[in-house]
């Protein structure tokens, strides 16, 4: 199978101990371009849908239960390396209705792969870059980076679920001047486990759509004055 991974073992020389690798991957300081994406939060703020911590909490819960859940399943599958990258990427494509979101996801995926290849050099990451030179979807890049770094598929799924909401939360802090401690409390209370506890048989990947996020992403791209890429 073209571009398919050769096995689940990360490059031993480069891998970081699993838990530490998870912390590094999920850290917003990972230099992979994530800081410039708001996951729809910028547009939601502009449209008056997020005005304070309560709105934000609802927004993040919705994001986690839909985009986060799908991202977690895709990252789990990519990390366990049981499918060809093109196929898994097509599965991701089919689950993201908005072209703007697909574009943002691929951009973040491409940047993450470039960064991860320098931090955790691995044949699997090279395969992924070769199979999808324009960028794989972000959760797939995250899953493969997690594998290269030495994480388990469950850890990869957790990283995907977590990063599906942290970028949006930070964006809201910056855009609305919300109390960062309040927002971190919101983040701490989100039900991450509920979205990664599922059975991740990749042939039965979940497909939770979030039409509002799709619309926000499309509208965002058409807004002239914007700080974030997505």
């Amino acid at each position: 199978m073209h571009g398919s991974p050769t096995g689940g073992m990360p490059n031993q020389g480069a891998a970081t101990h699993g838990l530490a690798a998870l912390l590094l991957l999920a850290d917003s300081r990972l230099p992979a371009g994530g800081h410039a994406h708001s996951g729809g939060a910028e547009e939601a703020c502009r449209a008056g849908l997020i005005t304070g911590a309560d709105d934000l909490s609802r927004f993040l819960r919705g994001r986690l239960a839909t985009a986060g859940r799908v991202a977690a399943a895709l990252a789990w599958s990519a990390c366990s390396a049981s499918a060809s990258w093109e196929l898994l990427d097509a599965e991701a494509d089919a689950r993201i209705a908005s072209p703007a979101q697909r574009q943002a996801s691929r951009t973040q995926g491409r940047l993450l792969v470039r960064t991860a290849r320098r931090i955790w050099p691995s044949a699997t990451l090279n395969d992924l870059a070769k199979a999808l030179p324009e960028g794989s979807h972000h959760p797939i890049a995250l899953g493969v980076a997690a594998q290269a770094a030495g994480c388990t598929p469950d850890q990869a799924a957790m990283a995907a679920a977590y990063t599906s909401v942290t970028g949006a939360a930070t964006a809201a802090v910056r855009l609305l001047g919300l109390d960062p401690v309040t927002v971190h409390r919101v983040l701490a209370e989100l039900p991450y486990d509920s979205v990664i506890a599922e059975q991740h048989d990749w042939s039965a990947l979940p497909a939770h759509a979030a039409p509002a996020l799709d619309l926000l992403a499309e509208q965002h791209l058409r807004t002239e004055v914007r700080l974030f890429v997505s």
Partner: protein
Amino acid sequence: MSANHDDHHEAPDGHNRALRLGIGGPVGSGKTALVAALCRSLGPSLRLGVVTNDIYTTEDADFLRRAGVIDPARITAVQTGCCPHTAIRDDIAANIDAVETLEERFGPLDLVIVESGGDNLTATFSRGLADKQIFVLDVSGGDKVPRKGGPGVTSADLLVVNKTDLAPMVGADLTVMSRDAAKVRDGKPVLFTSIREDKGAHSVAEWVVGIVGSWQHEHGTPHSHSYLS
């Protein structure tokens, strides 16, 4: 490593690629004006690419495209999510991606200029993004600015003090600025410009030609371009 085009980041030594020049400085000091001036002066002899880091809009990229100083396709605008300094210093991934994409599409190039979003005196480029950097101040920010120092003023490879035409109007003393800058910069060059009057910023262009020459001497000329011969 494979030869896949995604792989040139594997050569961080800079062999056979364009010199990457960062241009930073406070809001409105004349960074975009300088980029336009350099394109005007260097466009005929160097193969150029430009990356802008606009804060809210694509204003700078649009200005440069309209100015007609460079093929509009060779300008890429990067968005920085509220944090212009993050995009040039702490997380340079999007800028690297933009630079490499320009090199892939139009390369080989001699020089890629990255203009940062207007920021404060501490904003400098990561060495992972810019091989050399220029910090642009303007006289209307006050003649005390060089004395205040900060990483941009003290460590940039070249300090440009722009808008000298405004000095009499804002009561800025250029000799004070020059003396203070020399003191904090440890001998590194400082150039005074009025890009309004010198649309090619010729003194800066000459400095850039010099660093591109040294860069290519050290790292090889991307392909067989002969501008130095």
